[in-house]
């Protein structure tokens, strides 16, 4: 049992958990507002959008690729929802319209992901190029459809999705935690997840072993698009509006969160739990710096420094481990 727990946690988890504690203790000492109910709750409302988008980034990276289109996929999906709601009267739209719109959003997200996946899998184009092209396409399409503006005026009950609590936990957080659990199960327990890791390390050897490499690649990007749509729906509910440029700055933060969480930049290795911890650290840093009155740009700089420090520590850690191994 202990062994299983250990292997589920992986070697990245304890240092990240330790670091999270250090960050929390440090900010708690610096400012009394950090550990207040209000701040914790605001953090719990902010993190899920970034979290969902990071899950969308995680699996493509594990397979040795990248999905640069996640933000615009999310926003185009949000647009699909907004369009449906407006067809049904905007603020007067009922629950039925919302469910229909969400279904449409999920379909749009999955379809744009599937298109990327098909091109990557069957044409063999590089994921960076394909998703970059998709990103430009979706951004242009979105700006064309919205003329660069906001679309707002949603029914009031959507407020619950963006700002409501269930058992004291923010609804977006519940959605994110469920998604993270689903991702963990998918990666660790399903043949699809197994194939993701194998493809990430060596796609030709995976093919020679009889794994469905093309199907897996298509599915990876389809699922990535699907979770983008979920993020898009949550964003629409949180901001009470949809705009093509919402969350643009989050794209590279999702990559950062993955690498911080110990995901191998070259694919093949990485787990969900450390990535979730990495997200919590990034959120705590961002909120904490904000609370102590640091400049917003400074906090970006701190994130950057922090990442460099993590890379250095990880490199030293690996070297230390191999040296110890050699001497035994």
């Amino acid at each position, binding site marked *: 049992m202990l062994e299983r727990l250990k292997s589920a946690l992986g070697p990245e988890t304890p240092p990240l958990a330790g670091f999270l504690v250090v960050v929390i203790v440090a900010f708690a000492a610096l400012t009394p507002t950090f550990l207040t109910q209000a701040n914790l709750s605001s953090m719990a409302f902010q993190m899920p959008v970034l979290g969902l988008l990071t899950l969308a980034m995680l699996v493509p990276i594990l397979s040795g690729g990248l999905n640069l289109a996640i933000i615009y996929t999310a926003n185009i999906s949000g647009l699909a929802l907004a369009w449906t709601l407006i067809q049904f009267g905007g603020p007067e739209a009922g629950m039925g319209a919302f469910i229909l719109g969400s279904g449409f959003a999920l379909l749009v997200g999955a379809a744009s992901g599937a298109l990327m996946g098909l091109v990557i899998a069957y044409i063999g184009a590089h994921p960076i190029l394909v998703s970059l092209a998709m990103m430009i396409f979706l951004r242009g399409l979105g700006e064309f459809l919205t003329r660069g503006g906001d679309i707002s005026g949603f029914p009031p009950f959507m407020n619950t999705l963006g700002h409501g609590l269930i058992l004291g936990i923010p609804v977006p957080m519940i959605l994110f935690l469920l998604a993270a659990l689903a991702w963990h199960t998918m990666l660790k327990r399903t*043949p699809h997840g197994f194939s993701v890791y194998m493809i990430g390390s060596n796609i030709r050897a995976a093919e020679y072993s009889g794994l469905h490499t093309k199907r897996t690649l298509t599915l990876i990007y389809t699922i990535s698009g699907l979770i983008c749509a979920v993020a898009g729906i949550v964003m629409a509910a949180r901001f009470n509006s949809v705009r093509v440029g919402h969350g643009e700055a989050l794209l590279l933060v999702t990559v950062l969160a993955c690498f911080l969480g110990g995901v191998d930049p070259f694919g093949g290795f990485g787990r969900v739990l450390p990535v979730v911890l990495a997200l919590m650290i990034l959120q705590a840093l961002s909120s904490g710096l904000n609370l102590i009155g640091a400049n917003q740009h400074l906090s970006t700089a701190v994130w950057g420094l922090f990442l460099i420090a993590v890379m250095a520590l990880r490199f030293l850690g690996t070297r230390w481990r191999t040296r110890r191994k050699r001497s035994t």
Partner: protein
Amino acid sequence: MTEKLALKLTAVSKTFGGVRALKGVDFAVRAGEVHCLAGENGCGKSTLIKIVTGVYTPDPGARVEIFGQSGDGMTPAAGRALGVAVIWQDLALFPHMSVAENMAFDDMVGARPRLVQRRKDKIRARAVLNRLGVTLDLDAPLNTLPIAKRQIVAIARALMGEARLVFMDEPTASLTQSETDALLDVVRTLSAEGVAVVFVSHRLAEVLDIAERVTVVRDGTLVGVYPTDGMTQARLGELMTGTSHQQQVTAQDKSAAPPVLETRNLTRHGEFTDISLTVRKGEVVGLTGLIGAGRTELAHAMIGMTQPDGGEILLDSASLRPRSIRDAIRAGIAYVSEDRLSLGLIQPQSIADNTVMSVLDRLLNAAGLIKAPSKQHLVDHWIKEFAVKIGTPDDPVSTLSGGNQQRVVLAKWLATEPRLLILDSPTVGVDVGARAGIFRIVRDLADQGLAILLISDEVTEVMHNADRILHIADGRIIGEHDPRHTDVPALEARIYA
């Protein structure tokens, strides 16, 4: 002094962490001699070479003399200045640069860098190639040349630096027999010119052919120095492994057994033509021929990687047309690729994951999730079955030796419960002792009723391990031999004719 020594090592030891890779080894090479350094993987050969070339510093107490000069405080650059050159297995050339640029590289960036002098470099490069008796297009980018020619470029590059002592690490590992012969001719030319060559190879026949003396190292200790006159492959293998590997013909008559695989006039344009062969239950059929004869291509068509243009494949007398490797696996065909490093295994991933890779669908519960205990059970079973030496099943497969990796590949494929096993050059990069272990497993599998197609370009390998031998050349099967009624020299003569 009756003989000039190119290299003299005395009492060389090297310790990494707590591991003693070399324990007081003496090693001497005469000027102009072809000397073979023989030993299994991990015996300390590479460490020894790296000490001579200054990559590693030996433990205190060692003496290194190169052409009479002390090699203390040796560095790779100082070694080059003394005339020491190493041609590593991966060649360390620049694929996008031309032949001439590759050859002149050390001059351009060496101890005294100078400007690029294309015309002069080409003249010198041509002179060196003439010395070796080979012609190459000096302007051709290296990556347009076959491996064998690149090997020549690597040697020529060493000679540009006036090398007098050349180390060659497995230079023939990826060459065909005729290419090997050409390379060995170059080595003889070098030797005749007074360049000493230290030759490392797993192919014992070649070692005995080219070298005058052989130094055998086992587990970091010197076993001895022997003249190759009067030495046999079996004796050399014995010295290297410390155990006796008397190879014998194991062929049996299986003509009464029912056929498992049959092909009828199987053809794929430009690859193979009219291939009709049969592999019976419990039979090991050797398929041998030169590289490029269509061996691997034929295997690829049998496993659905490519589609034949004509002819038929029958498995247990039923027609089979695999569209993908999954179809082949489902039909009961397993294919052990010749390229274990990049196709056979996923090196960075765990031993456990590699073992279960092809049989995941058998480990699922009703909800479609992988059952961890079933996976564990399967992995434990195969590790025990094949006596794979591992730390834990979670270690990356890349931490295993070649022989143990090949056992993992076999385990992975046998887990699919195949009826036909295609082994494509299964012992590339596997050392002598481990080879015997692999072939014991192969024979056991055949005895259990598995039909096996053994593809190999090493004649001794098919002679000793196959029940029948098919000879393929230019995409056609041109002969069938019974190992009990022929011998290695006769067969080699036919194949390399």
